[in-house]
């Protein structure tokens, strides 16, 4: 969820109206955003949609607010004049960073607020929409210092050097990756490549080293910069073009006039940016059905225009609409329907309840779990709740073998998925050696076991584990509980003597029903008790409730 700051004063100037903070809060709420914070005239906006980079700056927000408030409605249009300038793309970029788009915006009045916004917008787009610069990276430069045409090509790490932004000495590309903050941060994006992408101007000067950093002279814009050259590079052409459109449209809101640049690839040529509005056809009856509302044609038109669509053509039910080219999120009529309901006002929609009747009820599993819990509570046992994630140490002490291991655990304590409940129940008893005995506890819950027949190699099962710790506890004490439980559930079963590493040899059994293994019961091995610091004899059982369901069916 992108969060960004705007100055209240700047936003009001862009919208053309003054607001109280409460008003802004309400408007933001209706526009998919929240006022996250307000301090010293600075509003922190938390915008929900990760697919609308055009909305992550004061300019885009103001444009949408003007529509919502009826100050300026319909599809925003932008004049784009060809600059006649070119970027020549060398085929060597194909493997490392194949796509580039560029534009020039002249006569922009940034000022301090506009400068903050353009820097912040670039950062937010690169971070979120650009997937930390992998998919999209943006550079803004002082157009007056560039001699065209530019060359987008590659260079070996030691072949080329320039003064990177905010540095005071020339560095090779290799040095930049090694010694500058941005270099170190994004070096992984270029790992494994022998040549790195560079954007050079006609005089051979380095404009930028995408996706890492701009040059310190050309690539250093300020509040006073009037003519800005923008380059966007990346791996996904659609995302690169959308990002460029969002940035130039924002600059145009500050009085800039947009000029396109010709990008010459080895086998094709693209003129960027293309801000021609896109068209989409939506059916009014569909919108009405999804929204559950009825609209007159006039209402429908007004709502579309408030949501910054233009109506191009109406043929019966089919409305062909125009929408601005900085939006890449419109994939289905649904996307337009949502904008229409937003323009109508979510809180003006009258809620109703579905007319059809359904019978609610518990899952088969919950029915079984309820019965099991009732029976075990009847034996005087306290139900406990433990985490499904556990540690190698707990499993080792409980003499269980790991099945599912996490690749990116936050801590060793939660780095595995439990394959059984026995280890976490022992861990629980281990934390309560100072409490009154007898301790009779049980837990029912998820475990993940190994299953070679499943496509994930695992299977999630629900188990129940029961443990009794007291000064004199034997196998018989828990076997009685186990038999009581299975008898009451009507599960046919038999016990077969079997040794387990965590039970005392000769004092444990496997619980089976036909050929299905349901679980085990036994006296916990003193070695296990010792490793958990438990000084009371303990006996336990564990059963698979999933297997019991199978058997009963």
């Amino acid at each position, binding site marked *: 969820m992108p969060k960004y700051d705007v100055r209240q004063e700047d936003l009001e100037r862009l919208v053309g109206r003054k607001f109280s903070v409460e008003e802004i809060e309400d408007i933001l709420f209706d526009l998919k955003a929240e006022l996250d914070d307000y301090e010293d005239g600075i509003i922190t906006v938390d915008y929900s949609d990760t697919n609308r980079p055009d909305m992550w700056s004061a300019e885009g927000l103001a444009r949408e607010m003007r529509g919502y408030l009826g100050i300026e409605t319909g599809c925003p249009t932008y004049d784009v004049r060809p600059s006649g300038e070119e970027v020549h793309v060398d085929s060597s970029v194909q493997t490392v960073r194949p796509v580039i788009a560029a534009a020039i915006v002249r006569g922009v009045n940034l000022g301090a607020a506009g400068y903050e916004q353009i820097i912040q917008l670039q950062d937010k787009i690169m971070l979120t929409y650009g997937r930390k610069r992998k998919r999209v990276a943006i550079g803004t430069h002082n157009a007056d210092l560039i001699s065209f045409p530019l060359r987008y090509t590659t260079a070996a790490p030691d072949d080329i050097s320039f003064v990177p932004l905010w540095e005071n000495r020339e560095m090779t590309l290799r040095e930049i990756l090694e010694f500058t903050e941005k270099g170190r941060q994004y070096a992984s994006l270029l790992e494994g490549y022998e040549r790195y992408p560079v954007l050079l101007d006609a005089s051979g000067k380095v404009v930028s080293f995408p996706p890492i950093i701009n040059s310190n002279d050309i690539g250093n814009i300020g509040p006073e910069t009037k003519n800005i050259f923008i380059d966007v590079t990346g791996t996904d052409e659609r995302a690169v073009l959308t990002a460029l459109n969002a940035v130039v449209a924002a600059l145009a809101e500050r009085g800039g006039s947009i000029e396109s640049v010709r990008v010459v690839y080895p086998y094709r040529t693209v003129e960027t940016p293309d801000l021609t509005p896109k068209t989409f056809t939506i059916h009014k009856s569909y919108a009405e059905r999804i929204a559950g509302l009825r609209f007159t044609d006039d209402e429908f038109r007004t709502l579309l225009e408030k949501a910054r669509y233009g109506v191009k053509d109406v043929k019966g039910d089919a409305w062909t609409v125009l929408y601005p080219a900085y939006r890449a999120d419109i994939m289905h009529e649904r996307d337009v329907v949502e904008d229409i309901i937003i323009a109508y006002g979510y809180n003006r929609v009258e809620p109703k309840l579905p007319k059809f009747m359904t019978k609610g009820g518990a899952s088969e599993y919950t029915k079984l779990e309820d019965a099991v819990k009732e029976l075990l509570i009847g034996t005087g046992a306290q139900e406990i709740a433990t985490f499904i994630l556990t540690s190698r140490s707990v499993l080792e002490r409980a003499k269980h073998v790991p099945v*599912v291991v996490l690749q990116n655990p936050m801590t060793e304590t939660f780095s595995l998925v439990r394959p059984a409940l026995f280890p976490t129940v022992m861990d629980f008893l281990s934390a309560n050696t100072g409490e009154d005995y007898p301790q009779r506890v049980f837990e029912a819950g998820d475990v993940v076991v190994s299953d070679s027949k499943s496509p994930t190699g695992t299977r999630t099962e629900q188990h129940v584990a029961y443990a009794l710790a007291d000064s004199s506890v034997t196998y018989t004490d828990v076997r009685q509980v186990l038999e009581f439980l299975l008898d009451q559930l009507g599960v046919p079963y038999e016990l077969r003597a079997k040794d387990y590493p965590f039970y005392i040899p000769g004092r444990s059994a496997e619980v089976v029903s036909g050929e299905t293994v349901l679980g085990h019961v036994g006296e916990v091995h003193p070695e296990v008790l010792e490793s958990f610091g438990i000084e009371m004899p303990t006996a336990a059982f564990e059963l698979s409730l999933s297997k019991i369901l199978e058997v009963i069916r």
Partner: protein
Amino acid sequence: MEAMRGLQYLSNKGIVRLVREERERIVHTEKGKGYVGEKLPERRILDALKTGPKRIDELPVTKEEFSGVIGLLKKEGLVRFEKGVLTLTEKGKGYVFPWERCYETLRCLDDESYRILNRRGLVTREREVVWYAEPEPLLFEVLPHVRDDLVDAVTPELLRSGSWKGKEFRAYDVVSPIPKRAYGKRQPYYEFLRRVKDRLYALGFQEEEPGEIVLPMFWNSNALFMPQDHPASDIHDIYFVSAPKTHSDVPPEWKEYMERVKRVHERSWGYKWDDEKACRLVLRSHATALSAFLLASKPKIPGKYFTVSRVFRPDEFDYKHLLEFNQLDGVVLSDDISFRDLLGLLKDFAREFAGTDRVKFKAGYFPFTEPSVELFVKHPEKGWIEIGGAGMFREELLEPFDINVPVIAWGLGIGRFAMMELGITDIREFYSKRLGYLRSARKIWGV
């Protein structure tokens, strides 16, 4: 214990006065207890030497016992120790150590004897509390009325013989405090979750069967129209699984749906699908993942379904965050439902779970729904708080499952409600490891 309770009773009635005295007592250590009723090593040595000089190995004591007392015997001049041979002196012949007489009772132990035995690890001091009962004047008034013809314990013998007949029973003190005892009951947080389910049954929702925890990225995310390598899939962090290893080929079980989903993604999101990424194993990161399975299982339409499922996300582990938590999620499928029904449902939930009609709807964003909405309720102290997210499943999501009716999808943040209902401020308490807390926590029973 019984006697104490009896005295407590008498004290409550003003018949006796209880006086508490704390004092120290000399007692045997574990080691010291071993010599009670036995001869101490020094006595055994002195007795053995009465029949003539002995080598150390001929003495009836262990090496440890010997080294513990030899200094003492020499210092008192009771033995001579030369060339490994021990001889009794004159003094040693009739000598008795002062502690030998009272070793068993320890009653007459003088300070010096205590010091010596304590150093040898045989005795120690222990604090003890002694209660005295002193008579109050009332005692002498009631004493003449005390009866010894009352029946005490009711025994099988008493019942069989019928000897209780015609007699009175001794009255108990039925009001003074007794030790508390814990019985079996449900875990408070699990009980809360169970009651949440009850509310949904009452609202006509059918509970889904439990689902898989280890899923391929495909079922966890992509089947919900969340594209690969795209910010729309970054709505939260995900745990990846390093063992078991991910398959290199698409398993046949997933093939059909994966092909269909892939087609929709490539068409709508415009990127090149990568089978390997789709097969990567992860831990279920949101309960909505179960909805994909539900849609694939040809659910009954119209229908209302829900699940309460544990989900896993790498996060901080502190009083506000857990690495695994339960989500309440559900869907409604019907030919004639709209956004208005969605809002109506959310309003119902607000009433049911937050006990309020004061709701506000915010346009939201979820990659799998359009339109999307967030539900806010007015909390008396905290102001507007978000309690859930919902929307109507995108048609691109429904297409691979051949579902062609509108589907409402919703999720409620039940963690917050649970904290309020259980009266806890640290979310880790849901999974409290303190048996004492579980035993004493009040039962949730709906009032």
